[in-house]
């Protein structure tokens, strides 16, 4: 039986705002389930309903098969890691970890033993008598983890537990949290806005926007087969290049701004639904790593490839790779709700009009700023979306 099951879980705030709309989710035994989405998408609210910190407006929540809608948090047998850790500042590390056991009236010697074991797992033994105020961010994060795992709960809930760490530590903890979760084998719901965490840590990922789950699947499946524009743009970094385009008769040509791009016949065979869009507008999507500078790579069969041109605006050499920012005269498309309001304002302006794109190319590639380059992409790696509703035309 699934440790956690959500059935049409809905949250409506007193002011009428619907934060979560009919959320269905089953988390399997030992599964690492990730809720990802931009801020305000309802992912944290959904988790807090599972925790019992937020009232459920309608729908049913079950933990281990039992309905939990009305059960108080302390009786749900769940543990939670908070974004700001929520460590008790007046207790030592050991007391913090052991607090839940103390509340359950566990015998003292047993608490001590378990706290010590947990501290060992997390490398906190040295700090066990310190107060949280004397710890570094990474150590506090571990204490928060320790407080959750010492209880051996039915479910772990983690609310952006790594977002307050610096970049380097975050990478390190990402692996560690995933490792601990696998080792304990406890069903886990993990909320994040970071698509890298979503891609790397979870067994499954639910991508949310505006209170609705858009797609819930294995991370690689979501990456390879996004159901719509938003998911396509959200997952992957740098995000997918999305341009407005006009599809020619029989899907053999694509008008990208003023450029006419030839498409091989295989495109239509692979994506039959494109037939309905002959002579119509579409949104075309290309992941940065699918783009190559023509003439620099000999492995790809040049014959099957699709080509278009762009002007090199900016070259970011990252050492292991180069990000080439180019512009075309095709309009760039931004998926709604992907950015915060500020960024959206920027994108709506001149930058978006210029049709900027990004290509990820090998570090040895020679590039000159302002130069016009021919960009090459394998037609299998093209994504097409319906501009009316954003849904994918790739299947």
């Amino acid at each position: 039986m699934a440790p956690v099951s959500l059935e049409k879980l809905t949250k409506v705030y007193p002011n009428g705002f619907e934060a979560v709309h009919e959320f269905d989710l089953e988390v399997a035994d030992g599964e690492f389930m990730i809720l990802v989405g931009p801020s305000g998408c309802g992912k944290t609210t959904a988790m807090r309903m599972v925790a019992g910190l937020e009232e459920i407006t309608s729908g049913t929540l079950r933990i281990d098969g039992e309905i939990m809608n009305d059960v108080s948090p302390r009786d749900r047998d769940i543990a939670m890691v908070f974004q700001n850790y929520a460590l008790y500042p007046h207790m030592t590390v050991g007391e913090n970890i052991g607090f839940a056991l103390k509340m359950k009236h566990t015998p003292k010697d047993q608490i001590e033993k378990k706290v010590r074991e947990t501290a060992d797992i997390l490398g906190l033994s040295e700090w066990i008598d310190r107060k949280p105020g004397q710890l570094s961010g990474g150590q506090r994060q571990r204490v928060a983890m320790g407080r959750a795992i010492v209880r051996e709960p039915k479910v772990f809930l983690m609310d952006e537990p790594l977002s307050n760490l610096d970049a380097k530590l975050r990478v390190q903890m990402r692996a560690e949290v995933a490792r601990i979760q696998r080792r304990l084998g406890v069903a886990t719901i993990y909320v994040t806005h970071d698509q890298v965490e979503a891609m790397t840590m979870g067994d499954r990922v639910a991508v949310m926007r505006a209170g609705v789950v858009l797609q819930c699947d294995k991370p690689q499946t979501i990456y390879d087969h996004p159901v719509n524009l938003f998911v396509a743009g959200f997952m992957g970094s740098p995000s997918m290049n999305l341009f407005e385009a006009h599809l020619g008769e029989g899907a053999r040509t694509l008008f990208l701004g003023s450029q006419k791009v030839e498409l091989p016949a295989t495109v239509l065979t692979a994506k039959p639904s494109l037939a309905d869009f002959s002579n119509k507008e579409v949104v075309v999507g290309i992941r940065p790593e699918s783009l190559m500078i023509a003439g620099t790579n000999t492995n790809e069969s040049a014959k099957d490839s699709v080509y278009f041109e762009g002007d090199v605006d900016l070259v970011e050499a990252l050492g292991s790779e180069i990000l080439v920012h180019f512009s075309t005269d095709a309009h760039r498309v931004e998926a709604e709700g992907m950015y915060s309001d500020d960024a959206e304002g920027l994108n709506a302006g001149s930058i978006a009009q210029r049709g900027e794109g990004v290509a990820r190319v090998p570090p040895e590639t020679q590039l000159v700023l302002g130069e016009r380059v021919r960009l090459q992409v394998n037609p299998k790696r093209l994504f097409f979306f319906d501009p009316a509703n954003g849904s994918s035309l790739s299947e």
Partner: protein
Amino acid sequence: MKSVVSHQASTPQGTTDSLGSKLRRKRKNGVAGYAFVSGYFILLALFGIAPAVYAICLAFTSTGGHVVGLSNFIKTGEDFRFLPAFENIAEYLSIWLASLVVIVIGLALMLHSISRKVSAAFRFIFYLPGALAGAASVLVWLFMLDPTVSPWRLFLGIFDFKNLGQTILPGHLPIIFAIIAFWAGAGGWIVVTYGALNNIPNELIEAAELDGAGPMQTALRIKLPLIKKWITFMLILAFAAGTQLFVEPQLVGEASLGLISPTWSPNELAYYFAFQNNNFNYAAAISVDLLVIGLLCAAVLVFRTKLFEVE
């Protein structure tokens, strides 16, 4: 297995179930809230609301217990001591508030422009006399105002005061009370104003300097506008407290050999009605007058400034 049965049974009425639960939860949470505030609520009711309500009832009834409308207010208002008492207070307040604005803000700005450590010492010194608020401060100032013993005797000599009686002539009282209030109370306000100045981000002041503003202009054009709400806050609170003057005229009156009226301030007048004339209804009427002033001040602070935005 038991759990399966139970959840299947309740699935069909999922929504009604959660509706009921919502009510139950609200009540449960509410009960905890009420429990936490109940003790304080009782104190508030007994010693905050009840006396006010009782005073209002008395103010609108006669000694015999009949409702008399505004009669008590009119009669106390027409009393020959009523107007002078409020005039005294008004005179005292205008001096006290003016000195608050000019001197307190001036000193706070000066303290803000010197090194933090030195200013901390000054602030503490200025704040220290606050420990002597009330009767002790009046007593100390009776010594200070007595030309025969005062350390300021040279200064008092300028005005040709020969003895305490001459210093505390009734005409001098508003300024004397303002000095006492300033001595005991200004330090606290200097600390508050300084704190408000300290909350101004340093970059802002540096930006003003880069834009070419001198210390004076920075103070007047950048710092002052940013602490405006604190100045309002200070003035309203000082005004509200100032209307309640009691201990100062009472004690100075003791030392004045009967030169100073026992009904110098409105609160003294109310006290006089209650205890000399045994007319609690008149006393209540004046208390209500003062209560209304206090309430108006509070209302202005709460509704017109943004200082008390509670969530």
